[in-house]
């Protein structure tokens, strides 16, 4: 059985159809061919599929596509302003926080929400924001550097 979904993704109104059991992640990647949001554990345990849903970071793999009805969703594709990268995107490149890059979109979405809230994130703030985002490449060191660099830049301290 299929459902129609009317939603807004990265500021653009989208209408699509999907099987009822389709996850938001599958809807993005397969129906809309937006490959930026990543498929990994598919069970809500790794954060690779994080998107911003009505202002909150969620795991799109365990969210029904049908629940996107009427929602405002931001994916990684919606962050840069043309050729101008968002501060979080640039900071991830600049500190070496991007190795294979597979966790990166999910991370950036989680970090963006954090830094929208505060540009002075404490260690607890960072743990809260991204302990649901697994990275296997970096050991997290340069990711923490990127979060602080982006925060400094957004606050005009760097």
């Amino acid at each position, binding site marked *: *059985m299929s*459902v129609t979904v009317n939603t807004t993704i990265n500021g653009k109104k989208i209408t699509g159809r999907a099987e*009822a*059991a389709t*996850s938001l992640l599958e809807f993005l990647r397969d129906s809309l061919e937006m490959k930026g949001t990543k498929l990994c554990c*598919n*069970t*809500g*345990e790794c*954060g690779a599929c*994080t998107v911003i*849903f009505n202002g*909150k*970071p*969620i*795991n799109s*793999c*365990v*969210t*029904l596509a*049908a*629940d996107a009805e009427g929602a405002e969703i931001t994916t990684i594709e919606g962050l840069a302003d043309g050729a101008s990268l968002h501060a979080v995107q640039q900071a991830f490149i600049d500190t070496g926080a991007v190795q294979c890059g597979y966790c990166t979109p999910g991370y950036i979405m*989680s970090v963006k929400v954090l830094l929208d809230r505060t540009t002075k994130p404490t260690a607890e703030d960072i*743990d*809260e*924001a991204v*302990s*649901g*985002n697994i990275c296997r490449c970096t050991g997290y060191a340069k990711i923490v550097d990127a979060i602080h660099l982006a925060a400094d830049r957004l606050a005009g301290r760097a």
Partner: protein
Amino acid sequence: MEYFAPKSISEALSLLDRYGGEARVIAGGTDVMVDVKYKEEPGCLINIKAISGLAGIKESNGGVRIGALTTIREIETSALIREKLPVLWEAAHQFASLQIRNTATIGGNICRASPSGETLAPLLVLDAKANLVFSDKETAQPFTGFFSGPGETSLGVKGLLTAIDVPYPALASRSVYLKHAVRGAMDIAMVGVAVLVTPDAAKNNVQEVRIGLAAVAPTPIRASKTEALLRGKPLTPTLVKQAAEMAASESSPIDDQRSSAEYRRWIVEALTRRGLAQTWKAATGKEATS
């Protein structure tokens, strides 16, 4: 698989009547979506998020009514819950990941009825009640009778949880939820211990104590024998040790891929001991352990 998004409780109930065990109710989806993908697809999926009036936190009758569709994050960010029901707040705060908390609902956590459900031991020690509706009746049932087995509750296949009512504990009481896990984030509790203690006016004896244990029995349980042991007595180090050991013996954990039963019993003992000491100190200023 059929799919419905009922707009009212009665619509949802009549769907449940019709489909019975073939139906799965989906709220946030963080558990149900995984089942739909990796177990048998249900005959029908009933998405209840369109039903209004099922979310929200409101003071009511000397306590708080929390709608079943209230997200864990909403509970975590509620100043009211943090102040008045801190043991529930602590469970919400240690729940999975931020992404999950933004979507998962307390109703979902309750109805999933996993023995290790994060909010369940706190709800047991808070003497909370579940508001259930069926097509032919409505009841309010204390959580202490609500869980009958892993994944099994008084809802059966046709009931709906609409809200929970949590009375405020006595002003003098203090509570804590101690979750034992490996990583400190994202984990399912290997053992969960909720302790609520109320000292008497002189702050000498235990007037009331409630101990909830999760992940160590087919359902979350109250350690009622342990509670009986403690009630009315001064909380000495010896008594704490005895109580902790009794709580461990009241649990019936299994060996599974996460840990052995023996280890879980050790942890019940340790966390009950810590929980009693912590809450007693917070409530009376006194040390309960040597």
